[in-house]
């Protein structure tokens, strides 16, 4: 009798998992289907599959260009956010100092709406002679990713015992050296989590490039997607094809680092 209820329970659990997966996947599966279907074909299973959308897309040099730009922005944002967020998080987690609460308040400021500050930001960037360069996008993107990155790292540091660090300090190690040789290696899952999170956010970001880089050689992938919505209508085959392609790098990154990412998000160490 107990065995039956347990299998029933397990069955329900599987059903629930599949249900959630279906809810999550349905729109994306439809996108996949449309990217392989001829335009204006609206049967559930398309009358025939075609690679036309993809071949047209991949024959464009722009797609490599836009991907390169997105990649550069994402990587450079990580290069800025990671060190800055790391030492900031360490300070907020391990030190006691005057103005600590003010530090928290400052961390919250970038949680304010990006669109509200985008217009004055353009003038600002122009004065710095950074308008229409990827540097501007990288800097702004970094600032808006900083709070979450710092927060995640701080939580991660707090979840790990201070005893090892204190032991090193008692042994005569300088704090900075201890940071690099002991604390940071212990933070690897947290670091991976920040890298993955920042990469995904940066890869998908549209609004900063939209405001700061008009040059067509600096456009990013999401803008490429918008290119398919002309003033005379929308091409669904093209849009879904670009969308699916744009999905690949973050997806790949996530799948490779999945376990570390989750561990980092919640303060576990990888066993």
């Amino acid at each position, binding site marked *: 009798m107990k065995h039956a209820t347990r299998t029933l329970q397990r069955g329900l659990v599987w059903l629930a998992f599949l249900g959630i997966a279906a809810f999550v996947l349905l729109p994306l599966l439809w996108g996949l289907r449309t990217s392989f279907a001829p335009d204006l074909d609206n049967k559930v299973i398309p009358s025939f599959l075609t690679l036309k959308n993809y071949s047209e897309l991949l024959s464009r040099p722009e797609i490599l260009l836009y991907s390169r*730009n997105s990649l550069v922005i994402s990587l450079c944002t990580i*290069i800025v956010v990671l060190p800055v967020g790391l030492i900031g998080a360490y300070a907020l987690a391990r030190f006691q100092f005057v103005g600590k609460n003010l530090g928290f308040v400052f961390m919250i400021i970038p949680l304010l709406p990006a669109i509200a500050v985008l217009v004055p930001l*353009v003038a600002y960037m122009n004065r710095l002679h*950074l308008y*229409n*360069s*990827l540097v501007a996008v990288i800097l702004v993107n970094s600032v808006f990713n900083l709070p979450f990155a710092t927060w995640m790292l701080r939580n991660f540091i707090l979840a790990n015992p201070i005893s090892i660090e204190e032991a090193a300090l008692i042994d005569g190690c300088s704090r900075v050296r201890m940071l690099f040789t002991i604390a940071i290696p212990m933070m690897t899952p947290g670091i991976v989590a920040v890298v993955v999170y920042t990469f995904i956010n940066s890869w998908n970001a549209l609004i900063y490039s939209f405001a700061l880089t008009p040059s*067509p050689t600096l456009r990013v992938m999401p803008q490429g997607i*918008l290119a398919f919505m002309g003033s005379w*209508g929308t091409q669904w085959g093209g849009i879904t094809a670009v969308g699916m392609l744009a999905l690949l790098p973050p997806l790949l990154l996530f799948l490779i680092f999945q376990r570390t990412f989750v561990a980092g998000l919640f303060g576990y160490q990888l066993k």
Partner: protein
Amino acid sequence: MSLKKALCVLAGLLLVSGFVFASGGSESSSGPKVLHVAHFYDPMNASMKVNSDWFNGIAAQFEKANPGVKVQWDVYQWDQIDVKSMSDFRSGIKAHDVFLSSPQLSAQHAQVGDLADLAPTIASQWSKDELAQFSWSAAWKGGIVGNKQYGIALGNHTRVLVYNKDLFKAAGLDPERPPQTLDELVDYAKKLTTGDVYGLGMYFGPSRATIELYYSPFLWGAGTDTWDPVTKKAIFANATGVKAANFFKDLVNTWKVTPVADEAGTYDDAILNAFVNGKVAMAWGYGSYWIPALEQHGMVKGAFPPTADATEINAGVALLPGCPTFVNSWDVSIYSLSQNKELAWKFINLMLQPENLRGYGDAGLPIRASEWNGPGMQTPFYKLWKQSIATGHPMPSTAHYGELADTVAAALQSILVSNQDPQATLQKAQDDWNAKYAGN
């Protein structure tokens, strides 16, 4: 110890190379002179590529004729290019020269000051004949505010009433006699509405097209407008405006000659697709950019590309009964902070050369009067399109045109979809707009 050092060095190298790589995207300040031309044709989209190729062709000619000058493109979304010009101007950015612009926003460009006044240059450098080539079109007026000119029209986009001649015959109507007045229009529509087919396709969706192509023509036909240039106030809630709103309501709900779906969705679906697929017998606001579709669907023959034997097989065209139509264009302008105004003017003139302008597909029907003298444009079909351009009307010259169109469109949506009272809704919308923008 060495690991830490190595990591630091690596991180430093990555950082430096990242920034070097990144700033490689911005222009170098030395070297050849750069002319910045802004348009909205992202070459990644196949259908846009045709137009961006045209621009590339012009650039090639220009660079050949002006050694030492490089043309650089700035690409924006078509509905955001004007604002880009304005906001970059406010930010003090100088690196723009030629801009495509929308004539509906001319008054706003005038107020912001981001586009240069071309009137003096045109007066001194164009002959009277050359000017006449352009000024016959209603689209030309769109770029003019007062006695200043901010844009030169590159083509003509106009709209007419199309009707299905076969369906006319089936309903016992004369296929060579389209409706001449609004009353006749309704009368015909009632006769043409049978089974699956609606008599009259209109578009009342939540977009500016509703105001530009449907609401404003009604007001123009009665001698009024949505905005009064003398008092500089919105007046769309006047008696004619309310009448128009009620007229639209009646089309859908009382006489049932227009499908309910026309209150939403897209302009393409409601007019283009509905007409060529035979779902509506007449379509108001059929655009000149859709002439190829008529040819593709066999409703006209020899009309695209225009030939001397263009015949209307079962699609007829007519002027909007009792109303002038909205005519617009894409304009080309010079950025007011441009450091290369003379070069920009040269570029524009190159674009406007008849041999060049002919190849610009997105421009629409020709702007140059001489282009209308060819045999392909003498057919009744094209004569009618030309007439619609000559008798057409641009949108009012308010600096807050965008908000005006959106406000009226939203009010119409409330009236049509949510069944709000037309008079009260329009009045409240008008008062709200005037509270903020009257006098502009």
